[in-house]
């Protein structure tokens, strides 16, 4: 399989060539173009319960798509995301990665999924009640709005709500006010997430909520 992320940094998209017999898993709605001979099979990856939790609590979709090459020549598939921005291609080696809603784009079929309780702190910090867990060995593609920064955390880091898109096992989240009661609201920051532990976090440089609140001022 040939897999390339093109269009970086502002309009990242994935350009894939699947050889006969190969298949790839993608999130619902991420296909931009594809050879008509590719077979599409929507599947509730991770099981029915996980898929229900994914749909109800994470705002993701119940089904994921499996694209399969069932003919005898290479077939092309291009994938996109709803927001303009960066796309990260990561090679997982028996690794666990937590993904925020909307971040997941596609992965090798060897990657497994489940949903996990994220903790009350995560919920208060508006980072969700559940989180999507991707684990195993294989490639995973996830993306965000704007540039995506990869940071190694050893100790603590404060991340503004709406900007965390993925993090490794070993990292835990705690919501807190950005400053004192008054300054949190006057500074415009409000709630932030305190990221603790040891591992990598991925942060998007822009947020949809930020753009929307800027647009809302005109109406």
């Amino acid at each position, binding site marked *: 399989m040939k897999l390339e992320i093109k269009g970086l940094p502002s309009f990242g998209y994935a350009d894939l060539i699947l050889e006969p017999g190969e298949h790839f898993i993608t999130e*619902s709605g991420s296909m931009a173009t594809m050879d008509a001979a590719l077979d599409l099979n929507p599947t509730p990856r991770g099981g029915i319960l996980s898929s229900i939790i994914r749909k109800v609590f994470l705002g993701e979709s119940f089904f994921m798509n499996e694209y399969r090459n069932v003919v005898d020549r290479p077939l092309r598939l291009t994938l996109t995301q*709803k*927001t*303009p921005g960066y796309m990260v291609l990561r090679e997982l080696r028996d690794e666990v990665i937590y993904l925020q809603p909307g971040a997941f784009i596609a992965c090798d079929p060897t990657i497994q999924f489940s949903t996990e309780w994220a903790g009350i702190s995560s919920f208060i910090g508006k980072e969700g009640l559940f989180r999507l867990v991707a684990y195993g060995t294989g490639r995973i593609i996830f993306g965000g709005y704007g540039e995506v920064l990869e940071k190694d955390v050893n100790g603590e880091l404060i991340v503004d709500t709406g900007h965390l898109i993925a993090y490794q096992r070993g990292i835990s989240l705690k919501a807190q006010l950005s400053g004192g009661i008054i300054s949190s609201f006057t500074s415009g920051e409000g709630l932030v997430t305190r990221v603790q532990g040891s591992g990598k976090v991925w942060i998007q440089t822009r947020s*949809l909520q930020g753009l929307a609140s800027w*647009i*809302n001022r005109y109406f």
Partner: protein
Amino acid sequence: MRPGSSAARIVLDQGESVTAEGGAMIAMSDDMRVQTSTFKKNSGGLLGTFKRLLAGESLFFNEFTAGSHGGDVYIGTTLPGDMEILDVTGRKIILQAGSFVAATNDVSINTSWQGAKNFISGESLFWLELTGQGPVIINAFGVIYPVEVDGEYIVDTGHIVAFEDTLRFEISKVGASWLGSFLGGEGFICKFRGKGTVWCQSHSSSAWGMSMSPYLKTVK
């Protein structure tokens, strides 16, 4: 600045002209002559103007003609994204309305009726037909990339920028079942058949707009 913030710089010799959609010019040399009209030569006269309005293009075209020292015109677009130059010589290109930016005067622009397919797909797709000779500048939301079709190729409706007239297209489903297509989140797609090039955009401005809508205030 491709693909995020593209702009085009057109260098004109003395007396040469280029026609661009209304509002596209960012900067130009000071001795450029600008003529605004509702129709472009070879493009359907006044009736063509109204058809273009329906197609989502601006009502006006601006024709920039360089003075005796030649001159430059800088052209930009409304949405951030890529720009591309297509040469229409020897072929007919169907272009999505809204993606047209500029062309030289030997290019003919007409609206193209592609049948009820426009409405069924749910996108507001109107098309322009480009024939004649010379370059056309197009723009899109995202990166513009070509796909050489030889057989059948599917493009999600929000991602089509332009295609060669040698291709047939129909609004259809992905894979073998309609249920599969809708559950898979793709719904209606465009299936191209034949031999020719389709120019695609990496992102869809309508999907981008919809992803913002839960956060936007409703206005009564």
